[in-house]
């Protein structure tokens, strides 16, 4: 497991993640800096929309790669069981 380790004088210990205050904070981070995402193939992409109508719902962000492939980005916090269920339903809808 990847972790950030810190030694405060009493030995090396993994730092606990501080998390994000809310989903909007993570959403904004991804929208402003999509290049931080380590995606397969390392594509260059530009965000071109948010809250994008797709199927019966809305995708959090829409982006496009240099080669023209569309990129749908969903951003969620894991501790929200409701959000987890919602994203599973969204993924199944996308795959259908």
């Amino acid at each position: 497991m990847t972790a950030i380790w810190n030694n405060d004088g009493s030995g090396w210990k993994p730092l606990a993640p501080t998390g994000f205050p809310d989903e909007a904070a993570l959403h904004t981070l991804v929208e402003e800096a999509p290049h931080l995402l380590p995606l397969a193939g390392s594509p260059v992409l530009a965000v071109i929309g948010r809250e994008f109508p797709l199927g019966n719902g809305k995708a959090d962000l829409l982006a496009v790669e240099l080669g023209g492939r569309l990129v749908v980005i969903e951003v969620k916090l894991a501790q929200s069981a409701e959000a987890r269920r919602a994203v599973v339903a969204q993924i199944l809808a996308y795959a259908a």
Partner: protein
Amino acid sequence: MDPAALEREVVGRYLRGHGYETLADALVAVDQGGMFDAETFTAGLAESLRDGRFRLVLVFDAVPNELARLVAYLESATDKLLIDLIAVSAYEVDGTRLIVPQRVQAERRTLVLSAPTSVPERPEGRLSDGADEFIASIDAAQADQQALLRKLAAWAIDLKNEGLVRLSTFVGKSARHTLVPRLVDEGVGLVTLWNHDGGSISFHRSVFARRAPGSIARVEAIIAPKMIGGGNNTNEISDELLVALTDAYRKAAGRPVRRATPTSAEGPSAL
């Protein structure tokens, strides 16, 4: 839906709100290597829209196990979706916020990624480390442009020798060459140098805003009426501009800036 309708009716407001007129403008603004090719992009976008073939990126602060299993299953069941499962962790260290993004490898991931796809990961072209290929391309440029191109290459090499950047060259279609001086820590450049129908420089506003915001006004005063960003480039390249860009790179790298005066301007070394 076709690409024109997507651009006009669906994402037009978002693009204009961010200072872009077209999808191409938005991509050129983030295209450090000058890899964007309009023909390849339009064909790829049309295919993505027509076939429903796209990339799905799921970003969590922590990835639940059941989601990783679901992604693995779906990727094995469809050839139209490429799914990236990303965990972004945030830490606080001595008052500094750290962000650690990681890609979660789901089962059977390798098999799916090795499958052929008609939409290329990158447009046609070749990326190489260093400035050698860019320099080699100068001999084939128009004779009246070669001195300018050598000056640009020498300037970039000076940045590298100062430890501010690493260099990479992209060779695109139609023998288009670009040289990007990339900040060592982040791998992005404030500018891209072009050998394409002559020598020119394009500017990356988002990188300026993030790493050298104090340099924007100085550079824009020199290239006026053009502005940094929006795919703008200039072929009017004075020593004053190169000195201002050198200072911008120093600021971006956290180095002290040696403010140049008209009598002490640091022009690039000879190539």
